[in-house]
């Protein structure tokens, strides 16, 4: 199973640090922004959904790699911002993209681990002979879930979408997967209201142990708990991914993890003893685009020749769920 093509789409509107500073003059924005490593983020237009962005990413993929939509026989769409409660946005995308009606399609609800899970599911579908050409789409509009006064998350997250074709041939062979879940931390990254458990908005605001405001009706992230979860699971995840793929650490040429924020990535790198030159950190122009960061990173690294043919690249995603996963790509 191989990755055959990767493209991505970022909305045209951006939010720069200068604009953020204007809105939060009391904030030591430079210090925090230096930490999160983001200079600007792209923001979806008011009438632009994750589905719309996934559509544009897929169209780009078809154009850039000269792929006919008719060859796609499965659509997987990773988003936590579906167009509707029902139907699956993937079904709408099948139609809009001109993908045959004989294709399977569904959405799945994951965030930062979503790209790795999508690859795992696509590999499973192809291995089982259910599909041959799986279109994996990731798209997120977290910025629409953020409270205007939530400067921390507004500095971190950006909107974006990515498209990836997974097939029986291509430029990156997808290795064995290690996946994991710790649902006990489900409420450390959550948007509580609007769905079935609590349909109506509550307007409830409280302050968490770190002094951050927790709002029921907006995205809430307990940064400390997410940080702890990550430094807890990622070192073991690395060991297990290496073992699963029967490869030693010195044979991994590059590490491309979910781009959560610069400081967290840099801490993970240090506790995993990964040399700086083998470790990708680049959120400057995009921010954390949730499920799309790994695909955006892969495409950028291939374009800039940081990742070249023959390399073993370890990818890993971790976050909301709480959920994590990793694999090795042989380029």
């Amino acid at each position: 199973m191989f990755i055959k093509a990767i493209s991505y789409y970022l909305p045209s509107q951006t939010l720069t640090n200068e604009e953020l500073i204007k809105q939060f003059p009391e904030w030591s924005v430079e210090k925090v922004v230096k930490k999160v490593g983001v200079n600007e983020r792209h923001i979806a237009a008011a009438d632009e959904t994750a589905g719309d962005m996934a559509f544009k990413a897929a169209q780009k993929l078809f154009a850039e790699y000269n792929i006919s939509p008719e060859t796609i026989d499965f659509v997987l769409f990773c988003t936590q911002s579906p167009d509707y409660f029902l139907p699956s946005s993937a079904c709408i995308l099948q139609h809009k993209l001109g993908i045959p009606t004989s294709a399977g399609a569904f959405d799945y609800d994951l965030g930062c681990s979503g790209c790795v899970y999508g690859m795992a599911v696509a590999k499973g579908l192809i291995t089982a002979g259910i599909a041959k050409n799986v279109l994996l789409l990731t798209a997120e509009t977290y910025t629409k879930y953020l409270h205007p006064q939530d400067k921390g998350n507004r500095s971190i997250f950006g909107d974006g979408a990515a498209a990836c074709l997974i097939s029986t041939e291509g430029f990156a062979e997808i290795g064995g997967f290690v996946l994991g879940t710790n649902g006990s931390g489900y409420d450390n990254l959550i948007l509580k209201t609007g769905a079935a458990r609590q349909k109506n908005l509550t307007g409830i605001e409280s302050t968490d142990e770190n002094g951050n405001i927790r709002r029921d009706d907006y995205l809430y992230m307990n940064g400390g708990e997410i940080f702890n979860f990550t430094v807890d699971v990622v070192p073991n995840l690395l060991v297990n991914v290496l073992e699963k793929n029967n490869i030693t650490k010195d044979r991994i040429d590059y590490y491309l993890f979910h781009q959560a924020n610069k400081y967290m990535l840099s801490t993970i790198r240090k506790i995993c003893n990964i040399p700086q030159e083998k470790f990708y950190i680049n959120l400057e122009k995009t921010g954390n685009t949730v499920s799309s960061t790994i695909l955006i990173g892969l495409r950028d690294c291939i374009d800039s020749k940081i990742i070249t043919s023959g390399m073993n690249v370890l990818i890993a995603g971790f976050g909301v769920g709480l959920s994590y996963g990793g694999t090795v790509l042989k380029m």
Partner: protein
Amino acid sequence: MDLEKFLADFADIFDETDASEIKADTQFHYLDEWSSMSGMAVIAIVKSIYGKEITGEDIKKCDTVNDLFELVKNK
């Protein structure tokens, strides 16, 4: 537990602060680069290198790097 080694491990969490600035009597909360995220990094480093669990509250109560060292040593 070795203080010199701990100072080096502690200094490693910073990107811009030079290791020479980190001494046993350094009041780390006053370092320019110190932030809530540094606290999380300290927790992570202590756990991965020393196999001990400390909390943000523990760190808040420490004034100098030596206080931190004692905290970890006695955990």
